[in-house]
């Protein structure tokens, strides 16, 4: 359900684990669905021997998509007007990510809610920060 202005106030937070122990298979699944087959995300020999990383790592857009679940679970389906993020740290197989959204503004004139969004891994390291705006009911 879309949020209504009466239900929320600035400073209110919403949080959920959006992936528990990220698997390489899920990264492959995202590659297949999105069409981004960069081998750095799914090809261990390439990621280690050619690119020089310790192993494969997730697409930034997978982290944005995982975090999008928290955002739409919070604001309701199909109500987003803006969603934007920065990828601040890499996400690796085995990571457990917790996404949190905080209400930063409730604009009753335009009937919009603004959120800040952040996703952290199991060590408390921030992997993504962003903002979202959605229409209120």
């Amino acid at each position: 359900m879309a949020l209504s202005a009466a239900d929320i106030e600035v400073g209110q937070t919403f949080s959920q684990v959006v992936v528990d122990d990220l698997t390489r298979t899920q990264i492959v699944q995202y590659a297949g669905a999105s069409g981004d087959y960069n081998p750095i995300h799914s090809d261990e020999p390439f990621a280690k021997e050619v690119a020089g990383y310790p192993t494969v790592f997730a697409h930034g857009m997978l982290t944005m998509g995982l975090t999008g679940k928290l955002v739409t679970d919070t604001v309701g389906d199909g109500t987003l007007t803006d969603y934007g993020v920065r990828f601040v740290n890499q996400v690796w197989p085995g990571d457990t990510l917790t996404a949190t959204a905080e209400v930063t503004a409730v604009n009753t004139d335009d009937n919009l809610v603004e959120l800040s969004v952040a996703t952290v891994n199991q060590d408390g390291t921030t992997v993504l920060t962003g903002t979202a705006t959605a229409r209120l009911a």
Partner: protein
Amino acid sequence: MSADRFPVEASHILMFARAVGDPNPVYADAEAAAGSEAGGIIAPPTFAQASAQFDPDYPLRPKFGEVWFGSGSMASGRMKAEKASGEGDGEKKAPSGGGLHAEQHFKYHRNMRPGDVLTASTKPGETWTKESRRAGLLTFSESITEYRDQDGELVVTARGIGVRTEKVISQD
């Protein structure tokens, strides 16, 4: 990301929602979605990115008859190709896929739905550089993609920022 024809299909939305770990029926169950506020199946917020599937020149997809830079018998197909042509020894580092994704922003003008046939047209934005401790000189470049429907109306505007690093990002 440019595509002359990006058909939005229910099965693609289903697979994309699975991949981002979202079991919300509004992405998967036509009957449940019809009875929801959305009024039918809609695409998840980051689905526009899957237009890569319909970009004929998208560089991060293996293409028929072309050397792929991922691993096969060697760690990169380019290393194998260079060795075969006598240009390389198969040992030195082949070029990687290049950039990483730094930022992504979407503006939603309306929901994408199965049955939409969109066009995606991308134009470059600004370019800038920044020094970083973990990866050397960073070169950022922005691109803006407009997704329009059959009537030419804007559906989603996407703004992506890519970054090329001077060296592999230090994990320390």
